[in-house]
């Protein structure tokens, strides 16, 4: 069995003062190491975290979620992480899923596990329009990367050391989710999907991505494909 301390959960955070403490405390309770990457929050998110035994990194300038994740991955590797989890700060994810993902990666001998809210066994309250947009995104990601997942833009992922060494995110904003797939395919990483629970709350749907952002992300992916 793995020592949970060698499993590093990276939580990128940008202005999540209202919920971040609950999210972090919940992950800590399971015994994982937490790296919180504060992407230059201006709402005092840091103050909310006092007294929680975590690694706290702060970008001096707001760079975007992709950049924050890569910072967390770099730091986790420095700390000798065996497994690295990416986890959203806004409370949508269920920390109970992490243990299941570890089991799956060991059973499948894969390098990366993508969370999916559309596999049998997952619970989600995603709206119909959100499901439609995510479906389009799945096929765009398939077209760009050659990997067709059952979900797209799911922030919950598990990387083993090999995946962490082979994936280097250069898309600072939201297209990093596509880049995870592109680099997995390019480096021939074995991947699995795990049915995870995503609970949209009034808070997270107000703050998180809106369906309309899909168009913005689409252009990010387009530019990413042209320029790298």
């Amino acid at each position, binding site marked *: 069995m793995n020592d949970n301390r060698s499993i590093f959960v990276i939580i990128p955070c940008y202005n999540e003062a209202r919920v971040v403490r609950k999210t972090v405390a919940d992950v800590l309770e399971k015994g994982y190491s937490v790296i919180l*990457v504060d992407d230059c929050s201006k709402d005092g998110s840091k103050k909310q*975290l*006092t*007294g*929680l*035994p*975590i*690694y*706290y*990194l*702060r*970008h*001096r*300038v707001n*760079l975007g979620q992709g*950049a924050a994740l*890569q*910072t967390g991955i*770099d*730091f986790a590797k*420095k700390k000798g992480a065996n497994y690295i989890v990416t986890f959203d700060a806004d409370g949508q994810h269920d920390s109970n899923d992490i243990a299941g993902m570890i089991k799956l990666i060991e059973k499948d001998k894969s390098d990366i596990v993508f969370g999916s809210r559309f596999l049998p066994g997952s619970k989600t309250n995603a709206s119909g329009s959100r499901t439609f947009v995510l479906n389009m995104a799945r096929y765009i990601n398939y077209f760009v990367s050659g990997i067709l997942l059952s979900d797209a833009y799911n922030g919950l992922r598990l990387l083993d050391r090999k995946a962490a060494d082979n994936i280097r995110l*250069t898309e*600072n904003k939201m297209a990093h989710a596509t880049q995870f797939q592109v680099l997995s395919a390019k480096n021939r990483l074995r991947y699995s999907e795990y049915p995870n629970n995503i609970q949209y709350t009034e808070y997270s749907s107000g703050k998180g991505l809106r369906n309309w952002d899909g168009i913005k992300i689409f252009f990010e992916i387009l*530019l990413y494909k042209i*320029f*790298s």
Partner: protein
Amino acid sequence: MTIIQIILTIGIVVITIYMYLRLRSSLLDVILVALFFAAGIFFVLFPETTNKLAHWVGVSRGADLLSYSSILFLFFLILKLYARLRRVEQKFTELVRNKSIEEAEEFKQN
């Protein structure tokens, strides 16, 4: 000389002086700037020559040829600039990232 020829000539002279002041470091740049300067003034003073050039490549008017080629050139410039912007952004990201890793804090439980 028409008014537009005077305006364009002054414009070219001003831009050339500005470019010369910024780029005077290498001889090649100075030659390049001087060539652009000469060509610009020449076409302003003898606009019919652009028509001949246009006919030669199969475009009806000199002004049309100019707009087609400048669209192409500007598009090329935008791509170059964007590629450069991405590179600068990556370097900037590395800088911010390394700084944040250097200054990582380990919070204590209380």
